[in-house]
């Protein structure tokens, strides 16, 4: 597989054949998987890579001179380069393997603990996932720095006027997600990055929801930190990455101590290994890292432009169809969003809705989506969320709409 977008016509039926799970049944009905924003499904090509690893070259990396260890190390480092190229990082050692977005964020937050003091301010957007709020709260508790929130407008966009005002406080750090998981809002990160740098702030972008749909260029963005998870982009769970500019990786202290991350150890003093190993203590998720690389190859073989265009078509189709349901309310922006629909049907609790459509084989997410502040903003206890991926079809959306209508009839 080559790491480039292909020009082949987008054929969803052929693509679906890559995903064995899509042909199973749930509660006696064909599975319709619309919880892609929580985790994506895994194509056979990636499953094969996982099986190949454990069947043929499972070994610890960076430690052995024996052939298996060398093979595993080569594949692991190749995956790092695949990720580097995909995100267009300047160096492979700017890609740190982590267990996922949450781990990546904690790694940075922990590093900043030694760089902040009580006079400092950090900004976080109101659209964040809990995993992008709690580590900063903990950081502020530790350093006594102040946490300020960039609020939302009633449309579900970030309020850029208030952002400008908050930047006058000269924050040290800004944290914002590229795309919101609860609403699908695409944030204007280019502008936010530029403005943050203008006042000397570093900025971390949480790309967990963006990377399944678009291909970010970290150099063009000029972003300081960019984080994501493999399991949202056709890869396995338990692996993700932190991109950080080399200069930041030198400035930040290591997150965890252990094997792999040291150069020399005596009881008096340990010197740390160079990048990226300084941040990769212990035996990593070797197979996961290699499979993450394979997942990126797989997505590139379909092509991100083709993916985005098709998903946009699905989103428009679903929005129109779902709006025909009586009492439908869709939250968040109308345009400038990815293929996520967060909604409620008047007089029906989201939990009930999710329970009934599950009986019909349809998987949607219900609840607060780890984004309680957003739910509080709309004064609701939760929403139902259907999120579409490039392997979903319009026919599945028709079935969803029928299912929602049936559920609403039962529940009202």
């Amino acid at each position, binding site marked *: 597989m080559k790491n480039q977008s292909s020009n082949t016509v987008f054929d969803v039926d052929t693509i679906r054949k890559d995903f064995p799970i899509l042909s199973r049944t749930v509660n006696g009905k064909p599975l319709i998987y619309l919880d892609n924003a929580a985790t994506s499904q895994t194509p056979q090509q990636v499953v094969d890579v996982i099986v190949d690893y454990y069947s043929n070259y499972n070994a610890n990396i960076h430690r052995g001179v024996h052939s298996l260890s060398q093979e595993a190390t080569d594949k692991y480092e190749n995956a790092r380069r695949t990720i580097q190229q995909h995100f267009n990082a300047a160096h492979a050692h700017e890609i740190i393997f982590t267990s996922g977005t949450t781990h990546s964020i904690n790694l940075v937050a922990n590093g900043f603990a030694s760089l902040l003091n009580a006079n400092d301010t950090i900004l976080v957007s109101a659209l964040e996932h809990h995993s992008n709020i709690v580590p900063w709260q903990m950081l502020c508790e530790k350093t006594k720095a102040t946490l300020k929130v960039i609020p939302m407008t009633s449309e579900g966009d970030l309020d850029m006027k208030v952002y400008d005002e908050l930047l006058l406080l000269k924050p040290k750090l800004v944290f914002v997600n590229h795309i919101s998981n609860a609403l699908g809002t695409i944030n204007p990160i280019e502008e936010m990055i530029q403005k943050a740098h203008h006042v000397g702030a570093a900025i971390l972008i949480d790309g967990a929801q963006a990377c399944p749909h678009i291909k970010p260029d970290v150099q063009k963005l000029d972003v300081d930190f960019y984080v994501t998870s493999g399991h949202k982009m056709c890869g396995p769970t338990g692996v993700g990455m932190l991109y950080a500019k080399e200069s930041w990786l030198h400035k930040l202290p290591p997150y965890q101590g252990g094997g792999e991350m040291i150069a020399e150890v005596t009881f008096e003093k340990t010197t740390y290994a160079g990048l990226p190993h300084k941040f990769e203590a212990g035996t990593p998720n070797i197979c996961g890292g290699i499979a993450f690389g394979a997942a990126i190859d797989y997505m590139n073989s379909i092509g991100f432009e083709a993916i985005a265009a098709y998903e946009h078509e699905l989103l428009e189709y679903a929005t129109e169809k779902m709006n025909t349901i009586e009492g439908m309310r869709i939250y968040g922006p109308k345009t400038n969003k990815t293929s996520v629909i967060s909604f409620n049907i008047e007089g029906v*609790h989201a*939990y*009930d809705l999710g329970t*009934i459509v599950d*009986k019909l084989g349809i998987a949607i997410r219900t*609840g607060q989506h780890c984004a309680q502040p957003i739910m509080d903003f709309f004064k609701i206890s*939760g929403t139902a969320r259907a999120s579409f991926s490039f392997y979903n079809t319009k026919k599945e959306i028709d079935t969803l709409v029928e299912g929602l209508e049936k559920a609403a009839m*039962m*529940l009202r």
Partner: protein
Amino acid sequence: MNIETIQADLIDEFSIFDDWMERYEYMIELGKSLPMIASEFKTDDNIIKGCQSKVWLHAELENDTVVFTADSDAIITKGIVAILIRVFSNQSPETILKTNTDFIDEIGLKEHLSPTRANGLVSMIKKIKMYALAYQTQIGL
């Protein structure tokens, strides 16, 4: 009424349905007919928060039996709440403490009592038992 009889009645009532939709519709009906908890008891103190749905539970002792009233914001949860109330309310603390919820499995609604479902029902059962224990101590039975 005897707690075993109530359970047998419920299993019987649900056994006439052969598909899940009818079973759910009946459960939803039971939920809708659940006597409302008095608004003065629908307080934050009486709330059991699951992250998906909420349950309110209030208990009172009447003639040595425990009377439960309850509510939920989700109608399916409320249906199960109604079933639990029908079984456990108006029973002696001793009976409540020695009765389990296996009848829910027999009705075919087991999935709703899974601790990972976060709908508040598992905590509700725990609370029912805690009330029973407290009243048992109070009346010294």
